[in-house]
């Protein structure tokens, strides 16, 4: 029974189950877990999850540890202390409890922001400001009978009404609350999701899947005109590793698990997935799959599409999954390719089999200073040409280098500060680098110690050809830290009239320099044009390399003092910047996703108006049509945003009809999908 509920039901899986149960014997059994979830009988539970879920990070009540109107943990944030020095609170991060002396000056010089001009966010959520829920009584009744926990509590609902787009956070800080879900459900396993989707179809209820809540594509926004009951399907409690297969180096994991838990749990068994998107602290596996996420170390481990072996997704038409776990198939089109990047418009991803790797023996950070950005890009291109990219290689432009520099924590010893001064002198005076032009590449090597050192030498040798100077491990490590704290920094900025966000693209090599220059210039130009009083921060980094191109990541922020509608200005500028990206041969998105588009347009066909004539939209139109279709005829899914910060523009082609035609069996468990090659059609 257990195996059939897992969907495969093959002998091989039985064998795997057997093997796993032996391994599991060495491990602690799930100890009653918490709360009343287990009161509901969950079949997945019976298959004895391989790894315990007791130390999971995200509780059902997210508000216990997370901010309601900002990024991350409630206890961690940047503040200016009484001396006017920036400080990072809490104890969770390396930076926690440290003074960051350079930040204040940097903020003042970059944005013209001063400590005197402070905005105040609404301190706490006012429950009375939340519109009362529209509840579908029949749905509720039947849901109750399944025992799946749910809540219509205002806080729970508001927490799941947004991702981390600027306008969403900005509205929350102002205490503005729009349409929020009417109810939150916490399925505990795949079968719970099947039941919920079934009930939603039956009672014409809208479902919005919710994973890590880190979406930056507006995927979690509730359409204000929606009159049906909207139910947020929170997958956070589906967070177990169900089994690990050491022979094939795969792990079967519930889709609600968040990145850091997945990595920590696997590490305990000596494995890792190596998938590390910047949002991995909070984003979920299901979200990665739904948005075609990309991880920092994709050069070794691959992007999500390379990592995924098998996906189980619940759609209003039934469950869809492949019937085998073969590493490659010639029977196309591959159903994974419309699931990945569907951004939740097609169904809820419940379980995923992923590749795993042994934890690397050795890790080493590094950095290289280049006299200018052009040289840096040329170096990265050469590294990509020789296919010797380390686990991660990123090139920050001059502005971002200065930004990273401003985040240097206070140095405790005079010796270190002396060394820093010496380094600076060497680079700018002795080597003649212009401090306003130089840029830095940060590196991360992973693997056998010996190979890492060899690899390191190879990369530094290439860098030297392009005028690059090795600049030490510290600089490298700090570069990566920047990406983790940037979201916290945005909250600090918002306290002082600075708003900003990031967006990214992928672009062929020959256009990298052009797109960086033009998009940055466009941002400056548009800000001026839209009446922004201070010069904006407009910076980029080449953050991933591929054979045929690179991923470029832009940060854009400005001081909005004196503007009537800063968010609108922000959106206009960002829109212009994206237009510039498309005009320069970049993709709409490398990994953030583009549902913002679909969400903006839900119910209209005016896609081309948003991205005027410049994007081949056939794929997204299809996705849209499908979501409309499912909503119309089944009243089921609205959109699924098991969102994290990692999305992409690639979109499914005309494949979904076939899937929609999958037969649903009479009794409870849904029939596994036949492999497409042997499909009768």
């Amino acid at each position, binding site marked *: 029974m257990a195996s059939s509920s897992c969907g495969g039901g093959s002998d091989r899986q039985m064998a795997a189950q057997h093997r796993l149960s032996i391994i599991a014997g060495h491990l602690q059994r799930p100890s009653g877990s918490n709360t009343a979830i287990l009161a509901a009988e969950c079949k997945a539970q019976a298959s004895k999850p391989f790894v315990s879920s007791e130390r999971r990070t995200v509780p059902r009540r997210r508000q216990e540890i997370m901010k309601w109107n900002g990024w991350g943990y409630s206890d961690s944030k940047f503040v200016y202390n009484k001396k006017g020095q920036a400080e990072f609170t809490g104890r969770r991060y390396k930076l926690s409890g440290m003074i960051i002396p350079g930040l204040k000056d940097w903020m003042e010089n970059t944005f013209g922001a001063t400590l005197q001009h402070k905005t105040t966010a609404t301190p706490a959520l006012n429950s009375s400001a939340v519109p009362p829920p529209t509840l579908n009584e029949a749905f509720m009744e039947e849901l109750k009978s399944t025992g799946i926990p749910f809540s219509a509590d205002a806080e729970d609902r508001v927490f799941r009404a947004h991702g981390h787009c600027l306008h969403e956070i900005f509205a929350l800080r102002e205490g503005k609350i729009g349409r929020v879900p009417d109810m939150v459900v916490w399925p505990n396993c795949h079968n719970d999701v099947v039941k919920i989707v079934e009930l939603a179809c039956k009672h014409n209820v809208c479902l919005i899947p919710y994973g890590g809540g880190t979406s930056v594509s507006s995927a979690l926004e509730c359409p204000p005109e929606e009159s049906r009951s909207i139910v947020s399907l929170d997958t956070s409690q589906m967070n177990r590793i169900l089994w690990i297969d050491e022979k094939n180096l795969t792990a079967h994991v519930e889709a609600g698990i968040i990145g850091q838990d997945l990595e920590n749990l696997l590490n305990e068994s000596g494995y890792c997935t190596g998938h590390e998107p910047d949002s991995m602290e909070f984003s979920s596996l299901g979200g990665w799959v739904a948005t075609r996420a990309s991880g920092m170390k994709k050069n070794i481990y691959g992007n999500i599409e390379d990592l995924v072996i098998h996906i189980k997704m619940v759609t209003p038409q039934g469950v869809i999954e492949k019937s085998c776990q073969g590493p490659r198939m010639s029977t196309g089109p591959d159903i994974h390719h419309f699931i990945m990047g569907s951004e939740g418009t097609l169904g809820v991803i419940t379980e995923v089999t992923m590749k795993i790797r042994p934890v690397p023996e050795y890790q080493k950070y590094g950095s290289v200073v280049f006299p200018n950005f052009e040289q840096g890009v040329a170096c990265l291109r050469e590294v990509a040409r020789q296919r010797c990219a380390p686990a991660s290689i990123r090139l920050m432009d001059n502005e971002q280098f200065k930004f990273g520099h401003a985040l240097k924590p206070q140095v405790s010893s005079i010796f270190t500060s002396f060394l820093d001064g010496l380094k600076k002198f060497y680079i700018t005076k002795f080597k003649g680098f212009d401090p306003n032009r130089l840029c830095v590449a940060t590196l991360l090597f992973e693997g056998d110690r010996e190979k890492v050192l060899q690899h390191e030498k190879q990369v530094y040798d290439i860098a030297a050809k392009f005028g690059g100077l090795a600049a030490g491990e510290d600089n490298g490590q700090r570069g990566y830290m920047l990406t983790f704290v940037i979201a916290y920094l945005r909250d600090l900025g918002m306290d002082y009239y600075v708003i900003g966000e990031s967006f990214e693209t992928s672009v062929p090599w020959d256009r990298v320099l052009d797109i960086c220059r033009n998009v940055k210039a466009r941002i400056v130009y548009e800000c001026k044009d839209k009446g922004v009083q201070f010069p904006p921060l407009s910076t980029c980094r080449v953050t991933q390399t591929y054979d045929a191109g690179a991923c470029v990541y832009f940060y854009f922020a400005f001081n909005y003092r004196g503007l009537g509608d800063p968010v609108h200005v922000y959106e206009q500028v960002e829109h212009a910047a994206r237009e510039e990206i498309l005009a320069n*041969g970049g993709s709409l998105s490398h990994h953030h996703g583009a549902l913002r588009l679909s969400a903006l347009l839900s119910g209209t066909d005016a896609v081309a108006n948003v991205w005027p004539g410049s994007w081949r939209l056939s794929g997204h139109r299809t996705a849209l049509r499908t979501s409309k279709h499912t909503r119309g005829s089944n009243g089921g899914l609205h959109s699924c945003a098991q969102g994290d910060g990692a999305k992409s523009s690639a979109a499914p082609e005309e494949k979904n009809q076939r899937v929609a035609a999958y037969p649903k069996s009479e009794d409870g468990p849904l029939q596994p999908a036949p492999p497409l090659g042997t499909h009768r059609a």
Partner: protein
Amino acid sequence: MLNFSVFVGQRMASKVVYSPRDPMLKKRDDFEDVLEERRRSSDLRYALRCYTPVLYKGLTPCKASELKTMVLGSDQLHYVVNQVSRESGVSVDEVQAEASVILEEMAQRLQLSTIRFFAFTLSKVFKAMFRSICVNEEGLQRLQQVIQEHPVVLLPSHRSYMDFLLMSYILYTYDLPLPVIAAGMDFMGMKVVGEMLRMSGAFFIRRSFGGDKLYWAVFSEYVKTMLRNGFAPLEFFLEGTRSRTAKSLTPKLGLLNIAMDPFLKGEVFDVSLVPVSISYERVLEETLYARELLGVPKPKESTSGLFKARRVLSEDYGSIHVYFGPPVSVRSLAEGRVNRSQFSLVPRHIPMRPSEDVHGFVNDAAYRLVRAQEDNMVLKPWVLLASLLLQNQAAGKNQGVPLGELIQQAVWLRDLCRQFGAFLHWPDHVPPSEVVSSSLSLHSGLVRVSEDRVFLALEQGPPCSLTAEEELLSQAVVVLSCASYRNQVLHVFLRPALLASAIHTASSSQKQDVYNNFLFLRNMFSNEFILCPGAAVQDFEEACYLLTKSGALHVNQHEVLATERGHRTLAFLTGVLDPFLQGYQLVCRFLCEDATEALTERRFVPAVREFIIKHLLKGRLRYPEVLSSDLQRNALAALLRLGAVQKVQGGEEPGALKVNRVMVNSLEDTLGGRLSTQKALRAHL
């Protein structure tokens, strides 16, 4: 066929598109005389002074010779070299060597020392020839700013060989970076001068290289490399060649296409186009142009170059006004017009034909820029006098105009001009009589004043020694010279004049009738004047607005009515267009009556000229200026465009012309107002 309903439909929109300017409110910048300082201080010190121009912020510093290496090593060129080698069977090395020769022949070698030499000698020459060289300082300040921001393309009008020397001279004077200038190969005939120009920034292009892929590749890559690197501002003439008639010429798109390419392909953030209007009170080549247009050999004295040069130096050429227009951003022009992502599907180094929309975009931009040049052209009082004198001449007043009457007419025309928004440089603090007489004295070669009457200087030399034809031609030289000054103001009067003529020939005062006539004339003359393609409605609106404002017309929903006091204005305006109307009709008549089977494009001008001379001698035509080969060629181009004449493909002689007599005939009748445009339009357009 455009009809009235379309026009009505577009009216609302065109209101927005055409924003009428009020010349009184429009602030024209102050001019500064460059020569003033030269007359006061040492030319040598000026030529040797410290020269530190502002630079483009994205400049990749490199020498002129390094540019060549960059071009020869570029992917763009490699691609074409390989292609040519494959197609022709010549080895890659040989083709590459050929490319290198082409580049050697083309490339500039900008040198500061040569510039200093020119700064010195030109100071001397300019001071001898000109009273002043006035430059709008605000325009230069704008230029200085924009040079730092983006690669800049300077687009001066082209009326004289002097133009580009003058441009570089001014830029040197104001400490701005010296431009590299696209020049025609003809200069290279003069060995030393050519090399001098090369060292002052000129690069030379063959006049025609239609099918030569390699030449085109070297040339376009050379220009683009200079733009991308911000090596120096690029300067070229949109009109392609000097206008012999002082009317703006239909813009050539080749270089503009190349200059916009780096922006369209994302290689630079933006490119700034700066239209520059250079107007000469007296053009150096004045009579040379007239003779060229008439096909008359140069006068004997010009064979002695030295003598001529000395004569030129001793004459007074009045003043020059140079107006640097506001920079036009290619980015903002392209906004919403060109989908730039079309360039991202093919590697950018592979040469591609511009797509339909890009071509249309560049064409529209070119017209806009030429219009901007026209609008900013400073007009001297003399151009008004020339217009009046020509009209009087045609009206048969061979006895000349009384000076007092001319002054009175000039003041009236000055006011009309100002109402039409012309950029007229009429010194207000000087009494009109003085303004007129000083203009007349400057152009003493063209006009005579005796016994308080003003004549065109038609009688030259002893009367008996010439045949009637020779006499006619020598008169025509003067008339055409005068016409070239009148032509400078034509762009101000053009649209109202088209409307006035349309009213004149319309069968009723119905707006629809008038508009149809207007449309017909506009279409007919679109090779003759700068009329932006697709802007018929705006032009009509503009003409209605200007004539209503000046009180000559009353325009309501359905009707266009001439007012009592408007007759003078309308008569003047129809008079402006009349030589062209007559000329086109005569060309039509020639094609109907006199054209033989053997007529070719090459023989067209001599044949039609002979035909016109006959008519002039018989006194059937009042306008010697119809002898202008420019007008004749434009008329033929219009007829070819309308399909009334066709080029025969593959005949025994190249360029043989086949005339559709019925159609030409009815076009002639329509031009003469003997056939309603409705019918004509229906029949032909």
